[in-house]
């Protein structure tokens, strides 16, 4: 029942579909994380977002994270979906679903996966404000830098 499904798409994400990929009768708990577009970051109003991926490597790094989970917890009922392109407020950019026999594992794995995705998967977020835009996380120009928020 090893799901290990990866979806990188320009279409709207459906958490129920991603969750359905990992469900099985051997599992007692399913944890789903859905990252959505916040309407403000660092006090500024966000009007929309864009995500850009390095698709071949994104897929490889998602698979690497699945391998890490399999190695550490012995669990392969995991699925991930990442939206790319233009997103409106409230739309999901990332969905992670994990099923495990016991809930503590399912929660731990879901948290681990989201953290790792935000560390190593090459997908970038651009926030658009009414008066400009910013590639989140791209420091390098001190006078223009500002704190970013995790989500």
């Amino acid at each position, binding site marked *: 029942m090893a799901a290990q499904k990866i979806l990188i798409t320009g279409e709207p994400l459906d958490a129920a579909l991603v969750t359905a990929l990992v469900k099985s009768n051997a599992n007692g708990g399913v944890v789903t994380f859905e990252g959505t577009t916040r309407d403000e970051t660092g006090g500024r109003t966000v009007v929309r977002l864009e995500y850009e991926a390095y698709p071949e490597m994104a897929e490889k790094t998602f698979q690497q994270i699945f391998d890490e989970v399999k190695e550490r917890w012995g669990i392969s009922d995991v699925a991930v979906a990442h939206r790319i392109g233009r997103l409106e407020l409230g739309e999901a950019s990332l969905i992670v679903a994990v099923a495990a026999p016991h809930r503590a594992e399912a929660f731990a794995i879901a948290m681990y996966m989201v953290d790792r995705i935000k560390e190593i998967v090459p997908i*970038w977020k651009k926030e658009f404000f009414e008066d400009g835009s910013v590639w989140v*996380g791209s420091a390098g120009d001190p006078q223009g830098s500002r704190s970013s928020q995790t989500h």
Partner: protein
Amino acid sequence: MTSSDGITITLRLFAIYRERVGQECIEATLQSGSTVADALTYLGELHPNTLPLMPTTMVAVNQEYTERDYVLQPNDEIALIPPVSGGQGATLDSYDLTVG
């Protein structure tokens, strides 16, 4: 530099790099024995507006994260990876493109 001294590599540019350079991809011929660091220097000379981004950039060669002393091989695909969407937490800075 004779052609037998050179290796051809591809630089792939995403997000803020793509916007600053105005291209998704650069083909370059570098001297044999060049490293990832040399490729970054090459890009910085060509597009100085990428230099401020480089300290926080990771590099992948053929879709694997790689150190800057890696010696390039012919046809390597080098990707510049600025900090990714969520960053390493709430302390990461983002680069502001707005004026003022």
